[in-house]
């Protein structure tokens, strides 16, 4: 399987990354180099092999669903590139 320019543009869009048009062709080559290399995984018979879900055998821990934190709006807003009062500001989303 190999990717072309349209595929790279499509996955850049899905990834929400603005890719300079000048980067598209080199990215096609880079990705195809990597995908050609990972093709060797197709040599392996994986019939009946379960996918790895956890490297260390352990049960998912459960805890009470209760409020343990909060009231930190000022701290949360401190790193916001643009904020007003306790709101994040974004371009208009709904017309």
């Amino acid at each position: 399987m190999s990717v072309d320019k349209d595929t790279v543009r499509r996955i850049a869009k899905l990834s929400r990354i603005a890719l300079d048009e000048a980067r598209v062709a080199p990215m096609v080559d880079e990705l195809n180099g990597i995908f050609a290399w990972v093709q060797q995984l197709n040599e392996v018979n994986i019939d009946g092999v379960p996918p790895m879900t956890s490297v260390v055998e352990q049960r998912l821990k459960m805890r009470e669903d209760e409020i343990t934190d909060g009231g930190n709006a000022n701290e949360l807003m401190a790193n916001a590139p643009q904020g007003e009062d306790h709101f994040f500001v974004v371009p208009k989303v709904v017309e």
Partner: protein
Amino acid sequence: MTTLPGNLTEFTLAEARDAVRAKKVSSKELTTAFVKAVADARPLNAFVTETPEKAIEMAMASDVRIAHGEARALEGLPLAIKDLFCTKGVKTTAGSKILSNFVPPYESTVSQNLWNAGAVMLGKTNMDEFAMGSSNETSHFGPVFNPWRARNSNANLVPGGSSGGSATAVSGNLCLAATGTDTGGSIRQPAAVTGIVGLKPTYGRCSRWGIVAFASSLDQAGPMTRTVRDAALLLKHMASVDPMDSTSVDTPVPDYEAGLESGVKGLKIGIPKEYRIDGAPPEIEALWSNGADWLRAQGAEIVEVSLPHTKYALPTYYIVAPAEASSNLARYDGVRFGHRARATDDIIGLYEKSRGEGFGKEVQRRILIGTYVLSSGYYDAYYARAQKLRTLISRDFTEAFKTCDVLLTPATPGPAFGVGEKTADPVSMYLNDVFTVTVNLAGLPGISVPAGLTANGLPLGLQFIGKAFDEATILRAARATEQAAGFAAKPAHWWRAA
């Protein structure tokens, strides 16, 4: 009175602990010496942020505790912290432009554990952007230089990566020890090429809370130190079970230092035959067989074992890790924190431009790979297949550990290489982690220990791989190797003249 090293920065972590406790040196004196060493070493670019005032303040507080007889395990000992660990009130960049102004309002569990044990923070170390790299050349803040140079050469070499700043800081005596993180080799590989010890613990041994996430099923924090004893000491105080990380494991943290000198007599050391790779330099082969000889001479039994899926580990990793990264890095959107692009009038444009400007080339490449392998129509061919390969790789280790206690392998396929030498070809760069990445996929502990020099004077390391939560045994084997290797070489401090 025992003699102190001529220069306080030459202390090991354990020596400094003993000297500070015995009041032979104050934390302030020790910390002042390291603050100066850090400032003198700026040509190495090992630190993204230096915190000298905070360091002196913490050291003075430690001296007060010591005077009152209240010294804790790491009281007054100056450390460097990889810039992937969130530090409250101190900028944490993950080596990325997108986080270049991020000041966390919270502290990572691992770093908090260290401060609770009395340690002092010298600053935050440079690293590959979001820990994606094997040479520290993907950092937004520029490459880090290895303190080591080849004999009769002035060429700058890379320190490995992604924990390249931490490796250089420990190797160049800019701190007593440092924290690193290891997703595919990012502690062990830089440790090997800078002549220091690096340990990746079992997945779940250290809490991941407050560590900027790269690939959550593989990431693990660990110590980078000048000696095996120091790695044992630092790991003890990094590890903990943590309610904030549901994958952190609730088993007691042993006193790793206690069993360190018990030797390797009767230990079964497995040599995985698949780690003999075509084109590996003869020096690596020689180092590996020396390692086996040293252990045999100390009473260990050497057995050949097979890990048949070894060659599939790197390609498996380059599906699994980018897939997880593409999901983890979705949070950087230019809205809540981090870099935000200017002059965008729609929300999608804001996301795309912020991420396009904020992420470097390697990070973008991996996000695209991850998005592709998880996308509809390709998921089964790539991601699902890779997760099955991961099961097979993990089973290989389970089988091998039926006939041995610990595995011995080379740590890297070669010594440190030149800055810019491998940046053009991603796959050749990825191959630096060929011996380390299997361990992450299986969640096992691994340690790299300096074991020799190349003909032109560059350090090489050996790696021990252990059973899950058996850090004690790999530390013991590494200690025996450290003693037998007698690795005493030090890099010339060429940067001081600069």
